[in-house]
């Protein structure tokens, strides 16, 4: 058990180091003097000097990297050149909004995707299966930023049911928060629901052929109980693990969704930073996103290991 976790960590750590090297190298892609560019368009000599000092730009590149990583490990992701706020603080401030959006999207994706997947597997080869597959494929193919715009057009502009933008914290006004987030969460959840439906379907098709399902049927267990208790329980595990792998996709999708619905989250932060050439913020956001993905995958792997009796037996 412990050895598995250690082995898994031993892979995660070099991955994280490589990500940090990559994120650091990004600023070397900037043409010309990075201090000039990163200090912004005003060419304020004080700002240029600050950047040069901050990133140790007169030192050799490996030394610069060392200083940068040292700062990152101490929680110093640099300072936003626009607002002079520490990047870590900015991210910590925006992250809860994106997490709320992501959780709501996941819930919607599960509520739609999993039952659809079960139904489609149980009714394999019928019109229901065919229709569910077409809907899922459409969900995977529709660009979510367009879906968002179309929903705004229909629900907000034409029907006037929900606000097209804005954000309210659920701790201040839960109802208003739900009102502003339900549409974005649906938009973000669509492609996830489609992916979950396809995974659930294939996992269910796999277990429906298993001996214990045949045994249960032979014993005279009611079909619904066979499907839900015997088959679905066993199909659920790979589906849940797979959804951990979708975490990165969720973060990426959130960038666009937040942009369309003007939600002040993590994704809006990176897009705004790109346009204000606030490179320290861009770097900070990718680093945090990648660290989040690595962490979620690590936890998912360990959990999978813990709950899967067959893997425990190999100890």
């Amino acid at each position, binding site marked *: 058990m412990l050895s598995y976790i250690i082995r898994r960590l031993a892979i995660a750590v070099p991955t994280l180091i490589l990500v940090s090297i990559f994120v650091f190298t990004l600023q070397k892609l900037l043409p010309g003097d990075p201090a000039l560019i990163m200090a912004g368009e005003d060419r304020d000599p004080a700002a240029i000097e600050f950047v040069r000092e901050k990133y140790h730009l007169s030192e050799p590149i490996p030394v610069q990297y060392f200083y940068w990583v040292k700062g990152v490990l101490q929680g110093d992701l640099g300072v936003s050149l626009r607002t002079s706020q520490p990047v870590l603080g900015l991210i910590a401030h925006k992250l809860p909004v994106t997490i709320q959006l992501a959780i709501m999207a996941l819930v919607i994706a599960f509520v739609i995707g999993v039952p659809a997947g079960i139904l489609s597997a149980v009714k394999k080869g019928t019109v229901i299966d065919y229709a569910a597959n077409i809907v899922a*494929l459409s969900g995977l193919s529709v660009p979510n930023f*367009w879906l968002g715009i179309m929903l*705004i057009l229909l629900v907000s502009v034409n029907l006037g049911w929900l606000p097209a933008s804005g954000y309210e914290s659920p701790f201040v006004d839960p109802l208003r928060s739900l009102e502003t987030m339900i549409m974005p969460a649906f938009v973000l959840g669509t492609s996830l629901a489609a992916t979950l439906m396809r995974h659930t379907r294939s996992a269910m098709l796999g277990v429906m052929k298993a001996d214990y399902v045949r045994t249960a049927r032979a014993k005279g267990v009611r079909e619904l109980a066979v499907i839900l208790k015997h088959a679905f329980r066993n199909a659920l595990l790979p589906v849940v693990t797979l959804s951990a792998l979708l975490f990165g996709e969720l973060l990426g*999708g959130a960038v*666009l969704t937040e942009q369309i619905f003007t939600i002040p989250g993590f994704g809006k932060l990176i897009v705004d930073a790109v346009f204000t050439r606030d490179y320290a913020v861009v770097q900070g956001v990718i680093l945090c996103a990648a660290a989040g993905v690595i962490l979620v995958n690590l936890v998912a792997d360990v959990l999978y290991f813990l709950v899967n009796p067959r893997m425990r037996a190999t100890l």
Partner: protein
Amino acid sequence: MSAITEAALPVAGAQRSGSRAWKKLKANRSALVGFVMVAFFVAVALLAPVLPIDDPAATSWSAVRKAPSLAHLMGTDEIGRDVFSRMIWGARASLIAGVISVVMAVALGVPFGLIAGYFGGWIDQVISRVTDAMLAMPFLILAIALAAFLGPSLTNAMIAIGLSAMPIFIRLTRGQVLSVKTEDYVEGARAVGLTDFAIILRYILPNVFAPVLVQATLTIATAIILEAALSFLGLGQQPPAPSWGSMLNVAKNFLTQAPWMAWWPGAAIFLVVLGFNLLGDGLRDALDPRET
């Protein structure tokens, strides 16, 4: 001598399974629909210069934000350009970006995957860890960051998409190589003294081809969405050149006055992506030897 007869076997087998795959693909209705959809958009993109349509860049102040009509089938945009001709020219940006970025990802990813899988050891460790690191960065966020640091343009968007898609092909190829490298015919080829390069080229690569083709088709779908997303954010195709993503970006500011500006580009992205997804799924079913 025996090596030659042995060598002939898998190749002949591959040809047989190739024609069987083609038959299966033709019989697969959704793959056929996908193929027709993709072919339609490719034809439109190729024929854009000769089609009898308005100049996509010609502005007209007397025809600003006009609803669809016979004169302008899809209406006009905020500076009076014909949306229909911009849609047709926009197909070029989408398809070119989708195909070129995936070609780039395959051209870089497959060799790295072959090397990692075939040679193993420390070189595999290095390539695999770099792949893990790249996969840890969300596709879109990585592409946004690359496009931001490289500067916004369609070329840079393609480079960003290609680089972010590359690890998928490294991992896929590596896995495929690992599964065939212990096959008897590979061992045999090694025993008769074929060089590593010859073995990879003649015995490993053909086995990698089918899954890479399937994945490439599906990745083109993702790449087209990604290009549209980057252009939507202003990081891809730069105005005034037409692209579906940047058309949507402008359209979202005129939702109440000119909703048609938002209908068409999104619908086109949806249809072309659906086409590639259907085709990719169909190819997978046709090329998967496990399915009968």
